[in-house]
C-alpha cells in the first residue's frame, strides 16, 4: 500500500530499509525531519551532534566501525562540515556513508541560497538528487550501494520543495547489509602527505569509474517524446518541466548530478533541436554542456536567484501564466515574528532601550532584527556573534561600552564556544549574552547538549553554558544569570557588565514559550479606564497586542500566553493579569 511521505520522512524510511545503523546530524531547515524520523526507528542509533562537522566526523567513524551511517544537514551546514567532507573523499568508507544536504532555493528559512552541487564537484564525490518522495527513499538506498561499491561517501542533495513535499511511497522491509569488519589500514585512514598522495590518485580514479557508471545507470534517463525541445533537469525542476510541457518536450532527467554523464548528454543533445537546461540556482549542469561545446540555453532565460515554479517556466518559456484575479490594493506583508510570550522579547526590549550595538546570530532571536524591535546590527553565520563582536571591538575599542553579542543555547554549543575561548584568550573587552531558552527553537524544537535530553528522548546531564564560560576563564563574578522577563533587573545587570573592562557573560534563562512544560494559565488584559494610550506596550512588538477600537491598545486573548512582560512596562498599571 502506498502512503504519503514527506520527502525527508522518505529519506529516513530509505535509511531504515537500507539497514542504516547510525545517524548523526545537526538540525537545519529544510533537512531536520530526516533525522527526527530516523530516530523513531529503534534499529537506528540516532543523535543530534553539536554541529555538522562533529556529526560528519562521527558518521565517518561509525562507517569504519561497521554500521551504515548517515549525516544530515542544511546547505550551510556543509560549509561547517566541509573539512571532513573533503578528507572523507580520500579515505573512503567502511560500511556505506551517505551525507544528506538540503538546499533552500528561495531562502524560505536560510541566510543564503548556495548550491551544494559545487561541493560534490570540488570534493570529488558522487551526488544523487531525487525529485519526489518515492525517489528520496530509493535513492537513499541506492546511495548506500554506491558508497560501498565505489568506497566513497555519497552526497544526497535535496531542496526545500522535495524535502517538504508529501507524495506517495511504497514501503519495503529492512534488509541488514553485509557486515563490514574494520581492519587497521593507516595508508587509507591516516591522511598525512605520504599516505594522502596515493589516496588523491584513488579518488580521481574512483571519479572516472563513477563517470562510467553515470552513463549507464538507471538514475539518469532520457524520456523521448518529440525533438523540438529537449529539457535537461534534475530534482524538482523535472516536476515543473513535466507540469508545463508534458509530452510536448523530451527530457534528460539526471538522478545523479555529479559526475556528469557526458556521452548520455551528447546523445540527448543530438536528438533535439532546442536544448534548455532547467536548474535552480547555479548553471552547474549548463556549464557541463558548454564545456563539451554543446550549445544550450538556461540561465539566459531563467534565473540564478530564487526558487523555480511552473509559473516561472510558463512566463519565460511559454506564453505567460493562466488568467487570474488581481487584488487591487497593496497588501501589508506578514513577516515571521517572535511568538507571543517569547523569552527573547524582553531582552531585545532592553537592548533597544539602551540603544546598544548588537552582534546577532542565528535562531529565533534573529527576529529581533525587525520592526518594532530593530535591535540587531549583524547576523552572518552560526557563532559569528561572538567572534565578529570581538573583531569589531579590537578594531574600535570604544565600541565595547555599548556593544553586546547575542547567541542562543544551541548556537553557543554549535560554534559559540570557540569564539568565547578567543575572547578569553585574547583578552577581549566584551559582553556576551547567551539566550538560554532550553531548546533549539527555530528549527522546530530539537534537543541540544544544554537541554538535558537526547534525540531519542533519554534524560542526560544537561551542559550548563555558565560552566563552560567558567572553564574558559570568565570571572564567575561576571557570569550573570537572569530572567529576560524582568526587564529592570536585566537592564541593571547590563549596565554593570558593559562598564566592566573584561569578558562578561549574561545568561538570560527562560524556556521557550512553545514548550509543553511552560504553563500558559494566565491572561493579560488592558483596562481601558486606566490605559492612557501611551502605547509603551506596543513597543514590544508582541503579536497579541494590537490597536483595537478607538485606536487604543488591546490584547488578543486567543494569542496572549500570560507572560506578563507587558504588565512590567505599563507605567499606569493598566495591564492586569488574570487566571485563564
Amino acid at each position, binding site marked *: 500500500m502506498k502512503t504519503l511521505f514527506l520527502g525527508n520522512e522518505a529519506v529516513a524510511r530509505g535509511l531504515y530499509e537500507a539497514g542504516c545503523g547510525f545517524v548523526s546530524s545537526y538540525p537545519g531547515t529544510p533537512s531536520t525531519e530526516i533525522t527526527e524520523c530516523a530516530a523513531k526507528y529503534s534499529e537506528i542509533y540516532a543523535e543530534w551532534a553539536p554541529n555538522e562537522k562533529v556529526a560528519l566526523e562521527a558518521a565517518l567513524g561509525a562507517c569504519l566501525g561497521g554500521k551504515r551511517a548517515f549525516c544530515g544537514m542544511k546547505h550551510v551546514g556543509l560549509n561547517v562540515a566541509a573539512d571532513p567532507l573533503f578528507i572523507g573523499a580520500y579515505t573512503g568508507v567502511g560500511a556505506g556513508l551517505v551525507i544528506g544536504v538540503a538546499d533552500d532555493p528561495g531562502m524560505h528559512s536560510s541566510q543564503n541560497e548556495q548550491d551544494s552541487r559545487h561541493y560534490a564537484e570540488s570534493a570529488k564525490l558522487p551526488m544523487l538528487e531525487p525529485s519526489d518522495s518515492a525517489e528520496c527513499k530509493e535513492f537513499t538506498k541506492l546511495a548506500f550501494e554506491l558508497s560501498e561499491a565505489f568506497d566513497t561517501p555519497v552526497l544526497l542533495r535535496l531542496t526545500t520543495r522535495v524535502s517538504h513535499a508529501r507524495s506517495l511511497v511504497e514501503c519495503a522491509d529492512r534488509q541488514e547489509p553485509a557486515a563490514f569488519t574494520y581492519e587497521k589500514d593507516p595508508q587509507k585512514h591516516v591522511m598525512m602527505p605520504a599516505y594522502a598522495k596515493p589516496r588523491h590518485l584513488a579518488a580521481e580514479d574512483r571519479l572516472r569509474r563513477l563517470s562510467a557508471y553515470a552513463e549507464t545507470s538507471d538514475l539518469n534517463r532520457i524520456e523521448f517524446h518529440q525533438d523540438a525541445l529537449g529539457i535537461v533537469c534534475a530534482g524538482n525542476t523535472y516536476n515543473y518541466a513535466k507540469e508545463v510541457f508534458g509530452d510536448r518536450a523530451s527530457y534528460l532527467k539526471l538522478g545523479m548530478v555529479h559526475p556528469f554523464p557526458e556521452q548520455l548528454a551528447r546523445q540527448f543533445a543530438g536528438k533535439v533541436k532546442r536544448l534548455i537546461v532547467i536548474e535552480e540556482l547555479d548553471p552547474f549542469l549548463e556549464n557541463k554542456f558548454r564545456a563539451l561545446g554543446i550549445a544550450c540555453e538556461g540561465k539566459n532565460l531563467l534565473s540564478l536567484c530564487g526558487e523555480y515554479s511552473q509559473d516561472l517556466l510558463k512566463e519565460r518559456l511559454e506564453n505567460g501564466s493562466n488568467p487570474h484575479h488581481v487584488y487591487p490594493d497593496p497588501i501589508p506583508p506578514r513577516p515571521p515574528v517572535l511568538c507571543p510570550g517569547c523569552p527573547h522579547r524582553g531582552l531585545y526590549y532592553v537592548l533597544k532601550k539602551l540603544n546598544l550595538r548588537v552582534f546577532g546570530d542565528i535562531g529565533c532571536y534573529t527576529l529581533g532584527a525587525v520592526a518594532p524591535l530593530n535591535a540587531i546590527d549583524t547576523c552572518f553565520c552560526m557563532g559569528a556573534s561572538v567572534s565578529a563582536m570581538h573583531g569589531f571591538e579590537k578594531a574600535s575599542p570604544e565600541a565595547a561600552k555599548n556593544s553586546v553579542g547575542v547567541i542562543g543555547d544551541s548556537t553557543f554549543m554549535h560554534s559559540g564556544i570557540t569564539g568565547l575561548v578567543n575572547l578569553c584568550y585574547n583578552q577581549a573587552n566584551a559582553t556576551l549574552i547567551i539566550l538560554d531558552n532550553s531548546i533549539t527553537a*527555530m528549527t522546530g524544537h530539537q534537543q541540544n547538549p544544554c537541554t538535558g535530553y537526547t534525540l531519542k528522548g533519554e534524560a542526560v546531564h544537561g551542559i550548563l553554558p555558565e560552566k563552560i564560560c567558567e572553564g574558559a576563564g570568565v570571572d564567575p563574578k561576571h557570569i550573570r544569570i537572569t530572567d529576560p522577563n524582568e526587564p529592570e533587573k536585566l537592564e541593571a545587570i547590563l549596565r554593570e557588565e558593559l562598564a566592566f573592562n573584561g569578558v562578561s557573560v549574561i545568561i538570560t534563562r527562560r524556556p521557550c514559550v512553545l514548550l509543553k512544560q511552560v504553563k500558559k494559565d494566565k491572561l493579560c488584559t488592558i483596562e481601558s479606564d486606566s490605559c492612557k494610550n501611551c502605547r509603551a506596550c506596543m513597543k514590544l512588538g508582541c503579536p497579541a497586542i494590537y490597536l483595537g477600537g478607538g485606536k487604543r491598545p488591546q490584547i488578543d486573548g486567543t494569542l496572549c500566553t500570560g507572560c506578563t512582560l507587558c504588565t512590567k512596562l505599563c507605567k499606569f498599571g493598566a495591564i492586569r493579569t488574570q487566571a485563564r
Partner: protein
Amino acid sequence: MNTKNIMIVGVGGQGTLLTSKILGNAAISAGYDVKVSEVHGMSQRGGSVVTYVRYGAQVYSPVIGLGEADLILAFEPLEAARALSYLKKDGILVANTRKIDPMPVISGAMEYPQDVLERIASLGVDLRAFDAMQSAQNAGNEKTLNVVLVGYLSTLGFFEESALRDALCACVPEKLRDVNLKAFELGKNAEVSAF
C-alpha cells in the same frame, strides 16, 4: 481526472498543516496520486504560510501556479487577498473572517486594509466567508479552526464527506476526536455571509 488544486493559506501557528494532511489522506483514499507541499521553518513563527494539495491521475509539480487553484481555504482575510491571484477565475474562495494584524500593522507602519473580503467579492469571486473562529470556539477549542474549514469544504463536492471524516479521525489524537468532529459539524453547517 484533471489535477485538482487546493491551496491552504494562513498565519504560522494556525494549524494549516493539519488541514493539508487531512485533505491529502482523503485524496489517497479516493485512489488518486497526491502531492502536498508544506512550509516548515521560519514562517511558522507567525508569518504567512501557504500549503498546496494537488491530486489527480498523475501529479508532477508540488506547488500551484497563478490562476490554478480550484479552491483556496484562507484562515485569515489578508492571507485570502494575498493568495487571490492563485485562484482559478471560477474557483471557490473559502475565508475565515477573523483578522490577525501582521507586525507592520501592529507596529503602526501600515494600516490593515479596509473591507478586504468585500473588495474580493466585488471582483466577482465565488467567496464563502464566515467566522470560523467563532465556530471553533463554539466547538470548545480555538485550535479546531482548521477542522471547521475542512467541515465547510465537505459541502463543496471535492471529497466524500465520509472520506474527510475518516481522514480527520486518522490525523488527530484519540482524546481530541470529539471536539474535532464537533468542529467539523459546525463548519459543515456554517452560514456564509453575503457581500
